[in-house]
Each structure stands twice: as C-alpha cells, then as structure tokens.
C-alpha cells in the first residue's frame, strides 16, 4: 500500500516535471521562432558578441539586438551591427568613430571600444538604413556562442535526432509488451507515461534542432582582433634661424663698409645674406652672401656718395629659409662715420633749438658727460653751451651774462666768460671752465652756480704749490678731471701743467729745460711750449698736447715720455710709428676707453689715432672744409680741429674751430 502511494507520487512528480520541461521547450521554441521571424521580416537582428573588443560596453557572451535606423541619422558613438567589408565579411559590432560625407553619402569609420586603432575599413551603408544596436542581453549570447562549434552542433544534432527517434520508436513499440506479456501494471497509465516520455523526447529533439537552426540562421557577431604596437611617439622639431644680431659696421675705407655679426645659429645656419636698403626698415636687397656659418663678415661698397645713408641687415640662411633680420645698422652710425653735433656757420644762435642748426663761433673746447651730453667751449661767443644727448637741443649753461671778473659767484649764465677754450666735467656733474681770456678756471655746479676755482693769484711758477686761487694761471686752455676729482690744467702762458686737488695746486709737468719730444725723464724737467690740451687714461697717466713743440707727451708717476710727434711724416694719411709722425700744432688730445690716443693735429686738419705705438689717420683728409657728415670720417673735411674728447664707447668729439662745428666720429658700441 505504501509502495503504491509512493509510486503515484513519483508518477505525479514525473508528470509535473515533464510538463514544465515541455512548456519551457515550447516557449523557447516559440521565442526563437518569433525572433527568427522578426529577423526574417527585417524588424531586427540579433547576434552574440564573441570577443572582448567592445569591452566594457559589450562583453564576450552578450547578446545584442540591432534595429534598423536611417543611415542619415547615424552619428559617431552609435554602435553598428554590420558585415565588415573584407573577405569573408563576418558580422561585426563596433562603434562609429567618425562620420564623413563623401559625394553626399555618409561614410563611417568604426572602432572597437577596446581596440587601440580604428578598424581598417570604411563603412558605406547600402540602402537607406543600417543596423544600430539598441539592446543588449548580458550573457545570453554565451550559450549561442558556446553552440557555435561545428562538432558541438553536430553532436547536438545527432543527440536531438536520436532522442527524437528513440521516443518515436518507443511510441511505436509501446503496445508490444501488453500484447505479448500480460503484465500486471495498469496498461493505460503506462501508455500515458510512455507518451509523456515520447513527448519529452520529441520536444528535446525538436529543441536541439531548433537551437542548431537558430544558430545557423543568426549571424554571429564578433569583433576582429587587432594588434596595434605603438612606439613611443617621437618628436620632430624644425630648426630655426636666429637673427644675427648684433650687427655692426665699420667704415673700412673711404668707400667700403665692413659688416660683422653674430653667429646665433651655429648648428643650423649654413650661410648669411647681407642686405642693404636706402630706406630704414624696408626695401632691403641682398648685396652679398657668405658661407659657411662661421664666416660672419662681409664688406660692401655702397654706391657713392658715401654720405648718403645706407641701411644694412643680415639674415642667417639655410636653403630657402632665412632668419628674421638682424638689427639694422646705418652707414652714418658705422664705426668711423662722422656726424654733425652742433654748429653751422659762425655766429651765435640756436639756443633751445636743435644744435645742428645753431651757430657756434670758433669752438675751442669740448667734453662729454656720462649721459652723452656735450659741453662746448664756444670761445668767440664767450659761452659754454650744452647739447642734450636725448633731444639734440642746445642751450647756454655759462657765460653770456654781464657779471665780469673771475671772482663772480652766482648764476653761471650771469657771468661773463672771456674766450673760454677748455671745459671738463667731473663725476658729480660739476663743470670746469678755462676762462682763458680772464686767466682763471671757474666751476659751475649742478645747480648752475659759478665760482672761481683756480688762478688770479700771484704765483706763476710751475713749481708753485699752494692754494689754487693763489696761483697765477696764464691763458688756461685744456682741462681734465680724474675720477677722484683732481683737475688738470694746461697753463699755456707759464708752459706747464698743473693739478688742483682739494683747492690746492701742484706741478704736474713743465717748467724744465728739455724741449725735444723724445725727452724722457722727470716731468718737471721737461720744457713745454703752449700746451693746449691735457687728457687722462684709466690708469691716471696724463697726456699732454705740447702744441708748440709738436708732440704728445705722457706723464706717468712723475716722469714724462714721448707718445707721438717729433717725426718727419706729416701727411694725415701717414700710418706708422707714432714717433715717426710729424705733428703740427697738435692742439687736442684724448684717450678712449681702449687706451687709444686721439690727437687733433690742427694745422694738417686731421685727427690721428695712436694705438699700440702706431699712428693712423682717424678723421679728415687734410683738406680744409666741413663736408663729409654721415660718411666715413677719414673722407671728411676738417678746418682747424682744435679739441677732442672721447667717451667710454670710443666715440670721439672734435671741436673744429675753423668750421665752427662740433662733430662726432662714431666709435664701437
């Protein structure tokens, strides 16, 4: 009894499981048929994802469903299900990475999210619509993917058909045992159970076949595997040609200009292009080239006249490439060019106007301060005039007033000067004036107050040492101030050079008996004759223009020596030993920052330069005149160069008394 009940319960459970299984199979079959029908009708496409190329959007094993979309609506970011346009044309699920329009048709590039590189193909949509993935069922595709195996599918086919066959055969042969053997079991119940088994077998077989069919009908989507080795990205940098600044120029001769520049692209430039224009800032035309890059000079012969301003730039070059222009240089700014600073014809005019339009009258002295302001001893106008470096405006800073006498103390422009021939300025800005006609030296402070500084006393001897105002200075001319404020004075009447220190005067040179230029010995033993100028170098050596002896002497530590003059060759163009040149009334001397000595050789009408013991022409041809401004100084004309001064840059100013002008010879900058 107990076993019968258990058997009934077992039969019930078996029947229930059978019905559930059959229901699942039937439902799956219907769903598969529905999906296939939808796919066949073009409503959607489904596909399993068989690779990880779209991770993390889609993982291997996901099942995607794609729906048709108008191709015009496709945009980058959409995921397409498509057949790759390569041999074999497998279905691919990849994302649109780019959309372009070619001949009015959208064209797409695709890429797997996990792939480094875009796909190799370009997608053109045939027809009006494409399949855009709209849904994804995670993992569902894994089963289909698992089924996507030839052997496995064959096995399922065989098992499915075999199971179906077995069930059918059991159904056919079900009655045999009942007819041949009178079994005790209930025949009707057994047949029902056998039918259920048969149904189950048939359903399993049909399910297997349907699975295989579904697999065969669906396109299997997979992402193609790609390998994209990428080396570290190399950088590529084009070279550059730097401007060849600074460009400088020198009047190498009366007709040629030597250009020199910096090699600022030593590893890239292969040469240079020298260019010239008659207009500043534009219109440059190449006048020459140089190569290789280490050749950084070029000499040009500009068209005559040399007094016409020419403008030069240099470009570094390499092939067709060139650098920006270097700085521009103008021919009148080249080393050795001469330019007008002040003066036109003799007279007095022009204060508060441009100095180049003002009139001077026999300027006999000139100096320059650290700012480049120029001070002129405008002798026959009895004034000291100043040319502002920044504006070029000329003004009177001393003289021209009614207050006579060296003892006058007051406003400098209220004082009366008498043919001042020398002017100097100290580092504090105090101006010293040789009031030549009044036989005294006067001082003008920064505030414009004038006072007596030396002279007017009774002690005329060169050897006198005492208060400066107690000495007698006759016709003081050249002045120089050292860095300590010591003032050096040429006493043309007493033929000596004096020094004033803290209000006291002392002998520097002169007063002796040795007249020849070649004399070397105690400075106090030399005989000077109308020394007109004095200058100092950085070492404190004192240079004296011994004007009437026609030589330049130097005093070092109390001893005097010959610098230039005393020779036989007097032409301005002479170049050779400085002791071999014949100076004639050298009235001016200056020392530049390089230690070169500039001599105003007044009678020959030229400036000479002594460097390392050799003399050469510096300015003036020897012909009287005032032309040549903006051109080479060695081609310019001077009339009576009387005084010279130099600044730290090497510029030299000359007071040309005979042409009533002050001019500047450009030095290196």
């Amino acid at each position, binding site marked *: 009894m107990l076993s019968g009940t258990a058997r009934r319960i077992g039969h019930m459970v078996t029947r229930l499981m059978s019905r559930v299984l059959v229901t699942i199979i039937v439902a799956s079959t219907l769903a598969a048929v529905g999906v296939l029908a939808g796919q066949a009708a073009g409503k959607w496409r489904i596909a399993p994802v*068989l*690779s*990880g190329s779209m991770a993390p959007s889609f993982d291997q094993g996901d099942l995607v469903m794609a729906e048709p979309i108008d191709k015009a609506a496709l945009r980058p970011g959409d995921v397409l299900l498509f057949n790759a346009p*390569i*041999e*074999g*044309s*497998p279905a691919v699920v990849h994302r649109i990475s780019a959309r372009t329009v070619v001949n009015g048709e959208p064209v797409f590039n695709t890429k797997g999210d996990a792939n*480094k*590189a*875009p*796909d*190799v*193909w370009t997608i053109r949509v045939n027809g009006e619509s494409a399949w855009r993935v709209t849904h994804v069922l995670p993992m569902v595709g894994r089963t289909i*993917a698992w089924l*996507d195996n*030839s052997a496995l*599918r*064959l096995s399922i*086919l*065989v098992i499915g*058909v*075999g199971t*179906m*066959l077995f069930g*059918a*055969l059991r159904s*056919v*042969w079900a009655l*045999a045992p009942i*007819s041949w053997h009178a079994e005790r079991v209930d025949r009707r119940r057994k047949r029902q159970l056998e039918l259920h088994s048969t149904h189950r077998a048939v359903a399993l077989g049909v399910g297997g*076949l349907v699975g*295989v069919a579904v697999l*065969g009908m669906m396109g*299997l989507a*997979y992402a*193609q*595997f*790609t*390998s*994209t*080795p*990428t*080396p*570290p*990205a*190399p*950088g*590529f*940098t*084009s*070279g*550059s*040609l730097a401007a060849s600044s600074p460009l400088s120029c020198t009047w190498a001769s009366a007709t040629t200009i030597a250009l020199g520049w910096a090699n600022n692209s030593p590893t*890239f430039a292969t040469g240079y292009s020298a260019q010239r224009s008659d207009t500043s800032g534009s219109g440059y035309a190449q006048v020459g080239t140089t190569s290789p890059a280490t050749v950084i000079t070029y000499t040009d012969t500009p068209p005559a006249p040399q007094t016409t301003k020419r403008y030069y730039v240099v470009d570094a070059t*390499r*092939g*067709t*490439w*060139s650098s920006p222009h270097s700085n521009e240089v103008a021919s009148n700014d080249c080393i050795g060019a001469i330019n007008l600073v002040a003066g036109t014809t003799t007279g007095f005019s022009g204060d508060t106007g441009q100095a180049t339009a003002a009139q001077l009258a026999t300027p006999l002295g000139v100096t320059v301060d650290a700012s480049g302001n120029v001070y002129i001893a405008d002798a026959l106008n009895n004034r000291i005039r100043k040319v502002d470096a920044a504006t070029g405006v000329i003004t009177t800073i001393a003289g021209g007033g009614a207050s006579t006498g060296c003892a006058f103390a007051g406003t400098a422009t209220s004082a009366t000067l008498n043919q001042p021939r020398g002017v100097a300025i100290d580092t504090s800005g105090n101006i010293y004036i040789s009031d030549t006609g009044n036989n005294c030296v006067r001082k003008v402070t920064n505030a414009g107050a004038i006072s007596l500084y030396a002279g007017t006393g009774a002690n005329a001897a060169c050897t006198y040492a005492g208060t400066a105002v107690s000495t007698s200075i006759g016709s003081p001319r050249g002045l120089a101030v050292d860095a300590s404020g010591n003032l050096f004075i040429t006493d043309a009447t007493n033929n000596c050079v004096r020094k004033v220190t803290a209000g006291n005067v002392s002998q520097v040179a002169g007063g002796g008996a040795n007249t020849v230029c070649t004399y070397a010995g105690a400075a106090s033993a030399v005989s000077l004759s109308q020394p007109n100028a004095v200058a100092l170098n950085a070492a404190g050596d004192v240079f004296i223009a011994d004007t009437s002896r026609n030589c330049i002497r130097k005093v070092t530590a109390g001893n005097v020596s010959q610098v230039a003059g005393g020779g036989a060759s007097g032409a301005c163009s002479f170049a050779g030993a400085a002791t071999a040149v014949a100076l004639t009334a050298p009235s001016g001397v200056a020392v530049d920052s390089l230690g070169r000595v500039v001599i105003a050789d007044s009678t020959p009408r030229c400036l000479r330069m002594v460097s390392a013991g050799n003399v050469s022409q510096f300015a003036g041809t020897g012909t009287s005149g005032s032309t040549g401004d903006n051109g080479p100084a060695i081609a310019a004309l001077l009339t009576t160069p009387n005084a010279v001064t130099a600044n730290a840059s090497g510029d030299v100013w000359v007071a040309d008394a005979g042409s009533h002008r002050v001019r500047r010879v450009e030095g290196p900058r």
Partner: protein
Amino acid sequence: MFMKASTTRRTGALLTRKLLLSVSMVMVSASVVGIGAFAVFTDTASVSQDVSSGSVTLQPINVSGANNRLSIGASDIAAGDTIQRAVHLKNTGSIALASLTLTTTASTTSVLDTDTTNGLQMVLEKCSVAWTESGGPAYTYTCGGSTTSVLATAPVIGTNLALANLSLTGGADNYVRVTLTLPSSAPNSMQAKSSTINYAFTATQRAAQAK
C-alpha cells in the same frame, strides 16, 4: 482457434507496421543527421569560434635597435631634410593577418603635420633583409637586398593607411624604412615648429575561415 488465428494475424500485421515505421524513422533520422552534418561542415559563414585562443600580435616596435628606430625623433629639421627610421614589423601571433595598416596621429601638432603639402611627407619601403644602418642619430639605411614600396609618398598624418607588399603570415619579418621629408617648398614660417607623431601599426586578423 479463429480468435487465435485472428489475433495472430492482427499481431503479425501490427508487427509489420511497427517494423516499417521504425525503418522509416531510422532512415529519416539518418537523413536529417546526414544533412545536418553536411551543413555544419560546409558552413563558411562562421569563423573559428575559438577566436580568443588565437592571437594577432605584432612584434613590439618600441625596442631600440638598428631595426627599430621609430621612436627616435629629430630636431633642427630644415626644408629639404629627410629623416630615416627603421621599424621591424613581425607578426609574432598565431593568426595570419588580413592587413597591416598605419595610422599616424599628432599628439603635439604644428604646421609640420597639419600642412599636407609643405609639411612632413612620409614614405615607407621594405627591404627583403634587415636594413643596414649608418650614422646616428641622423640614421640612414641601405638595403642589401631588394626594396619594395610599402607606402607611397603621403602626408605624415594618415588614418588606416594601407601598407602594401608586407608579409602577413605568422613569423614573417618585414624590415621597413620610414622616411620623412620636409619638402623644399616648406616656407620660412615652418621654422621652430614641433610635432609629436604617434605611429600605430594595426594588424588585423585574417579573413574568416571555416574551422
């Protein structure tokens, strides 16, 4: 007796019918299996399912060496200059390749890569043997074998540039020389420009096959 004979006759007929039905079912089933098996083994629509066990791998090209100089840049490039770099492309994977393409992008961009006419131009050539390198880092290469064109002159930036004449089978060596040229027509404005070029050689697996 009649009943027995009749029963015997029905039983025989039934047995005959069962046998005939069984034979028919077996034949139909065999036919289905046979047809299905044929269908499976001739299915060329699918590719090897076991994709993940195969591999598509190009030999890394960021290894410095005479055959791999692609990661080395250049400076002070002037109009008319050429830059040669070798790269060794080798499919070390187990799957033959359908194609090898080159995609170049600029992570640092300038007119050197954006000017497709006067900017950097690229040419790829293959040597049948390893290139012989000389110089450095201004490398130049000569081919001791025969050269073939891999990529004709093209702007340095390109997407999916098809590379021709490369061996795509597994293990095949491709000794490639990449030559970049800044055309002589490059204008002055191309001075002092910098571009960083990313090279991506993409190996794509071969076309689908039945497995």
